[in-house]
């Protein structure tokens, strides 16, 4: 092997390499990625294809007679399913507010942590801690905080005059989605802060110095240096997070279980309910397929928008 490498780098270029060596070179990247790829294909892609086929079949886990091909029946049911439309609306609400608040508070935190101060390392570890909390434990934790029996939040809101009596907002049809959103914001701020802080620290410091010498104020420096540098990171993290959060049902299932009366159900938790409570995998797969199509459309739009913005420059 050593002689091959030497031959390759000693004057003789590409095409004079022996065929075997060329083959080995061409297959190298595939060999490196093969184990990961094989696993992804067998454990994710094959089941996905099966799952898509389930959307057109009658699959009920406890019914051995099910399994037949039923064409578009699930989609016809779905078209008339009012619960699905409400879940879709709730998904927009849940994803929009969660991403927006996580991003804004995450960016502020990243900017705060980008300044050196005494004890920064410890503070950073502490404020990033919620991210390490298992998601469904975060859900339980916040559900307890909202519970007037053991939690303080209803009592605080009562003391502030925002509530007539301490009650649980998770059982209020008007407010129940806010419980999981708050828990999600608490849990997700660190993700944005970590990625944005990393991007901030990669900005060359001398740019700021040069700008202040030229008389640029802090706001101006933020707009003309920080934001353009952060833009690619922001675009990719917001895209990934949006898709991820609209699929993220743990908090809602743990905190409200879609209730009261399906008022806080999002599409992902609705799929979960269909699959696990009614064991109707066929219908669940049909809903999942629609969700998948919507998310792919969304991502395509963002990617096209990005290309368009890049080509404009």
């Amino acid at each position, binding site marked *: 092997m*050593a002689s091959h*490498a*030497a031959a390759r780098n000693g004057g003789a270029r590409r095409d004079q390499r022996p065929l075997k060596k060329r083959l080995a070179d061409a297959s*190298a*990247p*595939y060999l*490196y*990625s093969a*184990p*990961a*790829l094989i*696993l*992804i294909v*067998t*454990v*994710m*892609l094959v*089941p*996905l294809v*099966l*799952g898509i086929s*389930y959307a057109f079949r009658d*699959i009920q886990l406890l019914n051995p007679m099910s399994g037949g091909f039923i064409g578009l029946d699930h989609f016809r049911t779905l078209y008339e399913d009012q619960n699905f439309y409400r879940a879709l609306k709730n998904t927009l609400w849940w994803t929009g507010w969660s991403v927006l608040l996580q991003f804004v508070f995450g960016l502020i935190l990243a900017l*705060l942590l980008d*300044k050196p*101060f005494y004890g920064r390392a410890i*503070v950073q*570890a*502490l*404020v*990033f*801690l919620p*991210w*390490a*909390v*298992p998601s*469904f*434990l*975060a859900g*339980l*934790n916040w559900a*307890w*905080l909202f519970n007037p029996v*053991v*939690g303080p939040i209803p009592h605080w809101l009562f003391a502030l005059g925002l509530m007539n009596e301490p009650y649980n907002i998770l059982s209020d049809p008007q407010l129940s989605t806010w419980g999981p959103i708050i828990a999600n914001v*608490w849990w997700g701020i660190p993700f944005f802060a*970590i990625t944005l802080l*990393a*991007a901030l620290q*990669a900005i060359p410091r001398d740019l700021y110095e040069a700008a202040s010498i030229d008389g640029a104020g802090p706001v101006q420096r933020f707009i003309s240096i920080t934001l353009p540098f952060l833009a690619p990171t922001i675009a990719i993290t917001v895209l*990934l997070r949006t*898709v*991820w959060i609209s699929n993220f049902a*743990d908090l809602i299932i743990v905190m409200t279980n879609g209730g009261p009366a399906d008022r806080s159900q999002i599409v992902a938790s609705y799929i*979960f309910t269909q*699959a*696990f409570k009614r064991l109707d995998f066929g219908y669940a797969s049909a809903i*999942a397929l629609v969700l*998948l199509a919507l*998310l792919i459309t969304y991502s395509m739009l963002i990617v096209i928008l990005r290309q368009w913005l890049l080509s404009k420059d």
Partner: protein
Amino acid sequence: MTGKRILSVLAHRLAILAYVVFALFPLYWLLKVSVTPNKLLYSEGIKMWPSRTSFEHFDFVLKHSEFPTFFKNSLIVSGSTAVIVTVLASLAGYAMSRFNFRGKYWIITLMLLTQMFPLVMLVAPIFKILSPLGLTNSLTGLVIVYTAFNVPFATFLMQSFFDGIPKDLEEAAMIDGATQFVAFRQIILPLTLPGIAATLGFVFTAAWSELLFSLMLISGNDSATFPVGLLSFVSKFSVDFGQMMAAGVMALIPACLFFLLIQRYLVQGLTAGAVKG
């Protein structure tokens, strides 16, 4: 000018303090209720600290529940997943970072697509595939599934770490006669240690908190992981807030310890990647 400066420093510290309080308060409350004796749970429900503390809830959970088993199972599953994923993602991430090849675009597209599946969609098919292989109700089955789910993101992560390391390093080694794989193992990997630590941490916490597939694939208590165990705890002892929160506190410990150890590398590693990316 100095007055304004002091004011801005003060505002900065206050904002930081607000974030710390917001981040820690829920966890503090979890801890507080877990050490509040049952008798005081309702009478001192919203006091910041109970007048008397006890470890009765922890005692109960450790001795009279199957929580220690859940804990052990979760540790095995998350640990193995983290190690296997990191190995696979280092290899794949290296390929993405260092080679230009025809399939690269498709591999990246495939990996991005996997991040968009509603995972619920995969539950039933995976159950049907793993069941005849005897991999349902087994920790091995869970490790396989979690590994596959975490490899794509970990690969992107490792790729960005590799991108941060100059190519000249392994080129120099290869001129000296090393094969690319040797250069990768002996020169590039040691330089990526912070990135490897960050990936390990990411995957460990992800596997530690996974609920859906664990719920679906595991039916007995013997191989239940802690999220499933805690959830069954909640449905079984739903009025025993003290015990639930004691279990919650214990479940929190390994994830937090792991996180505190690696969080420093997380930002460092991502910074290295961002320089190029």
